């Protein structure tokens, strides 16, 4: 019998994808009876979807104009001035 702690560990650690059939059945069974774990699983799904969007978000602020200008200048300097 899996505890809520076990279920949360399996779901949150991403171990669920690799879990055996027997383990999956146990989790399904636990979720049928446990509303808090069901809510947990739903929320983890929302968090994961939002997480993937964090880095792909093309509308998020990028480099400022000033930073771009500064970097362009640095890139145009002769190699010997890079200081490394």
């Amino acid at each position, binding site marked *: 019998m899996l*505890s*809520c*702690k*076990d279920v*949360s*560990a399996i*779901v*949150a*650690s*991403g*171990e669920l994808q690799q879990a055996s059939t027997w383990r999956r059945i146990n989790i399904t069974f636990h979720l049928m009876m446990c*509303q*808090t*774990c069901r*809510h*947990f699983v*739903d*929320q*983890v799904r*929302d*968090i*994961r979807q*939002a*997480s*993937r*969007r*964090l*880095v792909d*978000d*093309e509308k*998020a*602020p*990028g*480099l*400022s104009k000033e*930073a*771009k200008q*500064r*970097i*362009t200048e*640095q*890139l*145009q300097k002769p*190699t010997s001035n*890079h200081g*490394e």
Partner: protein
Amino acid sequence: MQDPHFAIDWLEQHGDALYRYALLQCRDKEQAAELVQETLLAGMEAYGRFKQTSQMRSWLIGILKHKLFDHFRRQGKFASLPEDDDELAAFFDNSGHWQQSIAAMASPEGDLQQRQFSAVLETCLEKLPWKMRQVFIASEVLAEESEKICQDLSISTTNLWKLRQRSMLQLRACIQKHWSRS
């Protein structure tokens, strides 16, 4: 080899993506821009070793990652690794039941809500201890392979699982608190 035109093109095409990647992890705009600059300079030097079969952006992100980890190392982030097994006691009782039941939470619907939800997620991510945040970003945001993450952060697989569980538990609790109110 060291033709700045390449690098200026990279800055145009990938600069913002590199910047967002760096900013997500180091939370410092100046530092993130600095890391982008270092990455492009290093890319210029190393361009001869770039294999056309790989994607330019992934190649640059690979360089950026090295720069980022050097930066973390300089900050001494890897030095201490506090292990606290009692952390879970805040969430579960001795028999493994939740200390507090979790209420249902409305999923973000549509563009505006998704944006708000992402903002809450970022706020809560900032509150996580460094290592948990790194683990969360690597596994959930960047979807990196577990082995790679363990290697990068010098942790064991078991450790990774624990950190993933803890970061998710803390993050979820924080998000529910802030999301319900907004």
